[in-house]
């Protein structure tokens, strides 16, 4: 089970004024605020932290069905940057999540999972965002069918088999990302 979140950094610079009074305090812990304000590139650090919280929320929301807007309660720690990749942890109530993020000058893309080994099993596909990006993906990847299940959650069927993979989709500005995680079930009858 993975959750992912993507931020187009140029779009975010147009849409959000995170320097406004009170903004960081509403979404960040004191430690996170310090990390952002002392970073070489605070804009990118803010959206990195934000996507960690959003990706983690998507996992928790999918597991619990609970909706809430509590970004400050998703606590980021242990950021470890290796080139363009970042590993970190997020804690929320009884949940602990493992984070893998990719950072470029154009975007931040972050995946959250519950078991660290899942990070190695993920497939990530990036696309240019269009309103029809799901069918764009299906046309350019004939081995997969991306759709929504009965509950409206994204899933990928891997052809030719009946295997259905849980998926997480995210789009912002110019970009979209599709991430598949561990199998829901395998070899079930059609």
């Amino acid at each position, binding site marked *: 089970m993975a959750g992912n979140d993507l931020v187009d950094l140029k779009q975010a610079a147009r849409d959000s004024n995170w320097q406004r009074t009170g*903004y960081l305090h*509403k979404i960040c812990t004191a430690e996170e605020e310090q990390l952002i304000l002392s970073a070489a590139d605070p804009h990118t650090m803010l959206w990195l932290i934000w996507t960690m919280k959003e990706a983690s929320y998507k996992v928790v929301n999918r597991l619990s069905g609970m909706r809430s807007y*509590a970004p400050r309660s998703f606590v980021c720690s242990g950021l470890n940057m290796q080139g363009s990749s970042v590993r970190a942890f997020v804690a929320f109530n009884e949940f602990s999540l493992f984070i893998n993020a990719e950072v470029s000058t154009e975007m931040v893309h972050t995946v959250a999972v519950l078991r660290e080994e899942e990070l190695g099993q993920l497939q990530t596909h990036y696309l240019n965002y269009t309103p029809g990006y799901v069918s764009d993906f299906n046309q350019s990847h004939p081995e997969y069918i991306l759709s929504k299940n009965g509950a409206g959650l994204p899933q990928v069927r891997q052809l030719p088999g009946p295997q259905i993979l849980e998926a997480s989709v995210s789009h912002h500005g110019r970009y979209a990302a599709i991430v598949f995680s561990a199998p829901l079930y395998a070899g079930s009858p059609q």
Partner: protein
Amino acid sequence: MPVSFLKNINMDKEEFISELKTIVTPYTQEPEALDHISEDTDFIKDLKINSANLVDVVLDVEEKFGIEIDNDAMARMLTVRAAIEIIEDKLAASGRE
């Protein structure tokens, strides 16, 4: 007691909805949905407000009504109905002080 406070605490639902509509207008990606905004309107699902801009809605509501929305209240503030309840609660609490 400031006049604006007296005005706020006596507002009816329609006035709250109208104030909230003004606040969310710059952030919605679904402006047509504003035409039939109601207590049932969901900021994210119906108005397609980016979750990073929901912080702006919370901050604008704080400024407009002179209240502070704590973490627990913010966690619930996903719909117009929840926002009105939170504003009414905070205004009533500040009136008792």
